[in-house]
């Protein structure tokens, strides 16, 4: 499906508004949209709402063999799924340019910045290590996917617990969460991406562009930074040329402020979730559905009436025609071939010649020799059994 194009009027309007330092949703230039972080029932599942942009991240793990040149290190793998759910422009199948770009950026942001202690993921050196897999699903695309992705991914990583393992000789035992408490990952720092959109050859800049703004922007600068003000990755795309100062001072300052704000939010959200889990209360997505909205409704556990179920079931069974007990005997014209049923003759024309016999015997010789066996089952159509029902019960 194609995306609805942006009209010239809309484009001019947006640019004009930006020139006047106004934004569609009434935000200031350096404002983020309302951000919400929720957690799923599973460990390592995180939903991030950034305005109307919504993404979900799920972290999972698996025991795999390590890379040969790094036998003591666990692996990490990111997969960003641009599901067509988020925008009609996204298509399944081949990864698009955008998804490759986002994936690269996320990997640079998480893997190359070494935010996870990969050595702690080693189980048996050179043989078994944990592979951490981060799946990020786009649920709704309203601009600034990258920031939402990076927040969701790092929060999910912080939230994730991997199963405990014990190594005894060659045997590796993986404990279920009931047997032993799962273990959180050791995370050194939390890189968070902050995106800046540039307009009119870099004269104007906005933080956290929404989707219509992204469409009219000239370029995008993504800075990934942690709260210690260390830059983890920086990427500029689009055809803009930026002044060195712009990147160095201005953007960095803004980014660091935003990053510390977001980090605080994440920490708070994680603490809330931890407290909720400790208290034994229900948590997860089912609990996070807003009750007050009129588009939402919830129904308590209900029991299903079972009266007359028995009667109805037995009635049907009894009323049904008793299947005929006579079974036609199959014809075996030559060894290895059987026929049953009536109707259309098949095109294999077995009855025609004697030659067929030789051919089937050939097949059996093969069976003696090889482990593989094939039986050709020529099923004759039993189309004679053409029957019609009269509607019995209404």
């Amino acid at each position, binding site marked *: 499906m194609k995306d609805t194009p942006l009209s010239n009027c809309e484009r001019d309007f947006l640019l004009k508004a930006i020139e006047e330092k106004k934004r569609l949703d009434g935000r200031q230039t350096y404002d983020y949209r309302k951000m919400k972080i929720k957690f799923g029932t599973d460990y390592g599942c995180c939903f991030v709402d950034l305005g109307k942009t919504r993404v979900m991240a799920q972290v999972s793990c698996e025991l795999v063999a390590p890379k040969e040149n790094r036998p003591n290190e666990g692996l990490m793998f990111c997969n960003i799924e641009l599901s067509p759910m988020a925008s009609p422009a996204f298509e399944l199948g081949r990864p698009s340019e955008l998804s490759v770009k986002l994936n690269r950026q996320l990997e640079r942001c998480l893997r190359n910045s070494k935010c996870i202690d990969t050595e702690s993921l080693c189980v048996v050196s050179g043989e078994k290590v944990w592979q951490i897999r981060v799946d990020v699903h786009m649920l709704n695309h309203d601009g600034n996917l990258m920031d939402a992705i990076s927040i969701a991914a790092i929060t999910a990583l912080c939230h994730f617990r991997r199963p405990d393992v014990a190594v005894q000789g060659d045997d590796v035992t993986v404990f279920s969460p009931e047997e032993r408490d799962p273990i959180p990952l050791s995370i050194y720092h939390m890189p968070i991406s902050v995106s800046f959109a540039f307009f009119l050859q870099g004269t104007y800049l906005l933080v956290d562009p929404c989707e219509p703004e992204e469409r009219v922007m000239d370029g995008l600068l993504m800075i990934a930074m942690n709260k210690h003000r260390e830059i983890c990755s920086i990427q500029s795309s689009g055809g803009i040329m930026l002044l060195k100062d712009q990147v160095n001072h201005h953007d960095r300052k803004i980014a660091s402020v935003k990053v510390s704000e977001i980090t605080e939010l994440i920490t708070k959200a994680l603490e809330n979730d931890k407290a909720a889990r400790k208290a034994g209360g229900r948590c997860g997505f089912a609990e996070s559905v807003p009750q007050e909205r009129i588009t939402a409704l919830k129904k308590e556990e209900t029991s299903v009436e079972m009266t007359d179920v028995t009667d109805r079931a037995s009635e049907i069974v009894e009323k049904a025609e008793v299947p005929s007990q006579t079974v036609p005997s199959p014809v075996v014209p030559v060894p290895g071939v059987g026929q049953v049923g009536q109707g259309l003759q*098949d*095109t*294999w024309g077995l009855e025609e010649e004697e030659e067929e016999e*030789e051919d089937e015997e050939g097949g059996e*010789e093969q069976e003696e020799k090889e*482990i593989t066996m094939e039986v050709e089952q020529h099923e004759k159509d039993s189309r004679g059994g053409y029957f019609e029902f009269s509607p019995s019960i209404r």
Partner: protein
Amino acid sequence: MPVDTKRVRGPEVSQSPSLFLCKPAKTLPPDGLRADGRQRDQVDVRPVFVRCGLVSQAKGSAYIEAGNTKLICCVYGPRETERKDETDMKCGRLTTDMRFTPFSCQERGSWIQGSHDKDLSLMLHESLQPALCLHKYPHAGIEMYDLVLSCSIRQDGTSYVVDPSYMEENSHSLVDSENQGGLTVAYLPSLNQISGLQSDGDMTEDTLTAGVRTCIEGCFKIYPVIQHALARAVRRAAPPPSES
């Protein structure tokens, strides 16, 4: 990680039990009779069983059996070309696709078409194309100049075997002889034209020339069988007026 998500997946690695045989597999006796009793150094092809028109959905189909080699082939078309730019509007286009079923060989094959399959597809394409009147397309039927027949030999030193079986084709003779290789020829019998030729191994030119001649001879042996099968298929499809 490229994984096939469109099929039911098994374990990542599995090995054929034939790798762990307690006894080594039998090797070919270098001389004397062949495993199935046929003669060496003679144009002794296996009996073939051919039947046409087995697949009801296809426009044309054939099933052939020679020894334990079994093959089914179907022809579909004509259909609209997908890539308009490549097609010359004046003539039709032939596409061929050849696949091994995963259980066809000793080693379990993959469902994904391997390079061997592709290679055979290409060879098939090249061998058939000269016999087809593609320029007459689209008209009813597929007119052909001639039948295309094919025969293989396997040279092993000074002796050779015609129509080698799987074992003969894949066994490596222990003697490091000079002349060793395989040759396949596709031949149009009534036009006396070779439409396909492929060989590998290491052979002198004389052997090669002799091999080609042997293969042609082999093709002539199969010729009547195929003709007979075709005639029978035609007779069945359009029975003579007396019967109807």
